[in-house]
C-alpha cells in the first residue's frame, strides 16, 4: 500500500510538472510570436514612411537585422536587403503578397526544414500599390525547447528528488494508522472514518469466530470427556490408515506410547487380525476380530465412515475381553468335565447291568455286581449333590448366620473323619484356642470338612493332620496342615477350580468328585473368609482360613 501510494503521488507530481513545463513553453512561444509580428509591423511602418518620403532611394543606406523586400504591384522584386533582386523570381504568387495586395496587409509563417527555423513575414501595401515585406527568422518550438533543456532538466531532477522524499513521507503518513490497527479490538483504534464500516464488520466477524470457537471447543471437550472415560479403546482413522483421533484407553490397550499426529495407526499395532479388521473396514464392511497379545485378549470392532458414498475412514473400537474369554474357557472346561465325571459311573452302571441282563454273570457274582452298581450310583449322587451345592453357592442364597464355636466344629469334623483316617493310617488332632465366629453353620462346617478330608486323602500312611486354631487380635485363624504329597507350584492356583486334579491318573483310587476345594473356595467367598494355601511337594500342605473379627 505504501508503495502504491508513493508511486501514484510521485507519478502525479511528475506528470503535473511536465505538463506545466510544456504549457509554459507553449504559451511563451505564442507570446513571442505575437511580439515578433508587432515588431515587424512597426518596422514595416517606419520603412513605409521612409519610402514615402524619399522614394526607393531610401534603401541605399539602409541597414536592418531583418530582411526587407520591396515588391512592385506586378510581383517583381525591386529591392531585397539580403539578396540580389535581379536573381529573384516573381513574388506575386506568395501568400502574404497576394493577401497584402488584396487587403492591405498580411502575415505569414513558413517553416524551413533545412534550417529548422521559422520565417515570419509581414507584408503591407504601400500607397503607390507596391508591397513592402519584412521578414525575420525565428527558432522553432523544438529548438526553443532544446535550448531550454538544461534548466528544465535541472528543474525536473530537483522536483523528482523533492517529490520522492515528500511522496514517501506522505505514503507513510497515510498508511501508518492502518498498519497500527489492533485487529482484535478494531473499533478501539483511532483511524480514518472511512474505515469504520470495515472495522465494524471485522468486529462482528471476530465475535462470530470467537463464539463458534467456543462452541466447537465445548463440543470437543464433551466428546473427549466421553471417549476418555470409556474403558474401551476408540480409534478414528482416515482412508490411508492415518490416525485422526483416539482415546487414552486405546493407547493403553494397544500398549502404545503417544503417537505423532498423522501417523499411521499401524504404527501402534500391526498384528494380522488388526490389519485385517482395518482393511475390511476400509473396504466398506463391518468387521470384527479377536486379537491376542501375549496373555491378553482383545475384541476389535471396525466400521467404515462414509462421506458422499465414499469410504473416507474407519472407526475402530478395542475391548479387553481377557476375563470374558477366560471365564468362557473355564465354563467350557467345566461342562466338559461334568459330562465326563457323570459319564464314567454311568458307563460302569450300564456295563454291570448289561452283564446281569444278558445272564452272563453267575448268580453268585450278582450281589458283587449289584454292590458295584450301588457304589457307582452313590458316587453319582454325591457328584450331583456337589454340583447342586456349588450352583447354590453360585446363586448366593443368603443362609442364616449364627455364632459358631470353631473348636467344637473342628472336633466334630475330626470325629467324622476318624474312620477314613484310620483306614488311611493318618492321625487327626485339634490344637489351639477356642474362638467363636459368625457365619452360616452348614457352610463353614462343609468348608472345614472338605479341607480336612483332602488333608486326609492326599496324605501318606503314618502321616498326620493338625487342625490348629488361633484367636489373634483382629482375626481368627484356622489352619489345617498335613504331611502329605503336597501340590506342585504350577497347580497351586488351579486346585480350587472345579474338577481340577493335580494327578489326573490316580483320581479314581483316591475317590472324590474334584469339586471339594472348589466348594471351599466358593464357601469362603460367600462367608467372607480369607483363604490361603502353602505347600511343599512331598512335605505337606497347609490351608489357612482367616476370619476378620471386625467384619
Amino acid at each position: 500500500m505504501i508503495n502504491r501510494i508513493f508511486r501514484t503521488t510521485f507519478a502525479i507530481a511528475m506528470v503535473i510538472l511536465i505538463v506545466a513545463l510544456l504549457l509554459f513553453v507553449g504559451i511563451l512561444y505564442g507570446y513571442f510570436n505575437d511580439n515578433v509580428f508587432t515588431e515587424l509591423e512597426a518596422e514595416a511602418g517606419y520603412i513605409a514612411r521612409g519610402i514615402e518620403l524619399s522614394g526607393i532611394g531610401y534603401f541605399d543606406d539602409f541597414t536592418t537585422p531583418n530582411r526587407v523586400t520591396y515588391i512592385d504591384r506586378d510581383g517583381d522584386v525591386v529591392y531585397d536587403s539580403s539578396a540580389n533582386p535581379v536573381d529573384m523570381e516573381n513574388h506575386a504568387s506568395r501568400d502574404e503578397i497576394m493577401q497584402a495586395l488584396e487587403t492591405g496587409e498580411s502575415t505569414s509563417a513558413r517553416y524551413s526544414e533545412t534550417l529548422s527555423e521559422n520565417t515570419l513575414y509581414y507584408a503591407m501595401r504601400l500607397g503607390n500599390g507596391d508591397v513592402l515585406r519584412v521578414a525575420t527568422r525565428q527558432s522553432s518550438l523544438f529548438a526553443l525547447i532544446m535550448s531550454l533543456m538544461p534548466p528544465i532538466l535541472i528543474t525536473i531532477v530537483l522536483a523528482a528528488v523533492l517529490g520522492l522524499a515528500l511522496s514517501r513521507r506522505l505514503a507513510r503518513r497515510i498508511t501508518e494508522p492502518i498498519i497500527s490497527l489492533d485487529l482484535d479490538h478494531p473499533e478501539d483504534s483511532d483511524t480514518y472514518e472511512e474505515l469504520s464500516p470495515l472495522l465494524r464488520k471485522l468486529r462482528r466477524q471476530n465475535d462470530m469466530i470467537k463464539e463458534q470457537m467456543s462452541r466447537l471447543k465445548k463440543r470437543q471437550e464433551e466428546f473427549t470427556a466421553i471417549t476418555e472415560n470409556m474403558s474401551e479403546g476408540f480409534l478414528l482413522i482416515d482412508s490411508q490408515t492415518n490416525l485422526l483421533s483416539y482415546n487414552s484407553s486405546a493407547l493403553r490397550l494397544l500398549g502404545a506410547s503417544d503417537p505423532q499426529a498423522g501417523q499411521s495407526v499401524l504404527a501402534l499395532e500391526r498384528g494380522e487380525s488388526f490389519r485385517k479388521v482395518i482393511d475390511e473396514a476400509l473396504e466398506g464392511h463391518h468387521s470384527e476380530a479377536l486379537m491376542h497379545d501375549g496373555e491378553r485378549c482383545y475384541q476389535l470392532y471396525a466400521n467404515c465412515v462414509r462421506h458422499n458414498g465414499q469410504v473416507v475412514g474407519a472407526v475402530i473400537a478395542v475391548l479387553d475381553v481377557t476375563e470374558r474369554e477366560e471365564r468362557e474357557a473355564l465354563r467350557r472346561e467345566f461342562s466338559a468335565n461334568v459330562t465326563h465325571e457323570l459319564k464314567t459311573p454311568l458307563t460302569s452302571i450300564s456295563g454291570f447291568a448289561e452283564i446281569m441282563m444278558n445272564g452272563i454273570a453267575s448268580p453268585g457274582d450278582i450281589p458283587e455286581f449289584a454292590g458295584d452298581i450301588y457304589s457307582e450310583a452313590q458316587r453319582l449322587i454325591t457328584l450331583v449333590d456337589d454340583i447342586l451345592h456349588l450352583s447354590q453357592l453360585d446363586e448366593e442364597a443368603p443362609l442364616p448366620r449364627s455364632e459358631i464355636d470353631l473348636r467344637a466344629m473342628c472336633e466334630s469334623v475330626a470325629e467324622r473323619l476318624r474312620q477314613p483316617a484310620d483306614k488311611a493310617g493318618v492321625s487327626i488332632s485339634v490344637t489351639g484356642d477356642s474362638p467363636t465366629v459368625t457365619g452360616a453353620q452348614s457352610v463353614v462346617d462343609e468348608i472345614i470338612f472338605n479341607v480336612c478330608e483332602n488333608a486326609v486323602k492326599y496324605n501318606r500312611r503314618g502321616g498326620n493332620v493338625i487342625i490348629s486354631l488361633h484367636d489373634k487380635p483382629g482375626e481368627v485363624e484356622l489352619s489345617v496342615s498335613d504331611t502329605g504329597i503336597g501340590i506342585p507350584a504350577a497347580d497351586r492356583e488351579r486346585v480350587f477350580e472345579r474338577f481340577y486334579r493335580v494327578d489326573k491318573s490316580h483320581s479314581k483310587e483316591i475317590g472324590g468328585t474334584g469339586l471339594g476345594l472348589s466348594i471351599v473356595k466358593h464357601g469362603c467367598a460367600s462367608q467372607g473368609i480369607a483363604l490361603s494355601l502353602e505347600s511343599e511337594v512331598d512335605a505337606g500342605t497347609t490351608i489357612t482360613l482367616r476370619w476378620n473379627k471386625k467384619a
Partner: protein
Amino acid sequence: MRSRFDEQLSILNTEMIRMGALCEEVISLASRALTHGGDAADRAIAVDAEIDRKERDIEGLCMKLLLLEHPVARDLRVVSSALKMISDMERIGDQAANIAEITGYISGIDVPEALHIGDMARATVKMVTDSVDSFVKNDLDMARGVMKYDDVVDGLFDKVKNGLVDLIRGGNFDAEAALDLLMVAKYFERIGDHAVNVAEWVEYSITGVRSNNETSEVSGI
C-alpha cells in the same frame, strides 16, 4: 494442507509397516511350523508370496518418489533406506519360507529341546520384531539393540551346530534330519543378519551415518 509428497511419504511409511508386519508373521509362522507343525508351513509360504508382492509395490512407490519428487536430505535418506530395507525384508520372507518348506521333511522327527533350535527361533522372531519396531517408532536405541542381539543368535547357532554334531556322533539320530535342522538353524541365523541390516538402515535414515561392523563408518548424505 499437506503436500502430495508428504502424503506419498506417509503412504510409503504405512506400506513399510505392513511389510514389516508380514515379515514378523512369516517368521512366527515358520517357527510355529517347526515346533507345532500343522498348516503353519503352508501359511508361511503364502505370506512370503505376499511379501514379494509388497516388495514390488514399495519399490515402485520409491522409484516414483525419487523420479517425480526429487527428495533431498532426510527425505532422500528415508526413501533410499526404504529401498534397501525392503530387499532385506524380502530375504527374511524367503528364508522363513525355506524353513517352512524344510519343516515338511522333518515333521516326524522329535526335535530335542536341548538342541536350542526353539530358542533360536524365538530369538530370531524377537530380532525381526524389534527391527520392525525400531523402524515404526524411529527408535535408534532399539535399532542398536537389534545389532547387538545378533551375537545371541550367532551364539545359539554354534550351540545348535555342536548339538547336532553330538547327536550324529551318538548314532541314534537321523543324519538327514540333522542336516535339515542345520539348514533351518542357518536360515534363522541369516534372518538375524537381515534383521540387523534392517536395523542399520533404520539407523542410517535417522542419523545419516551407516555403521557397519566389518568396515569403518561410512558417512552418508
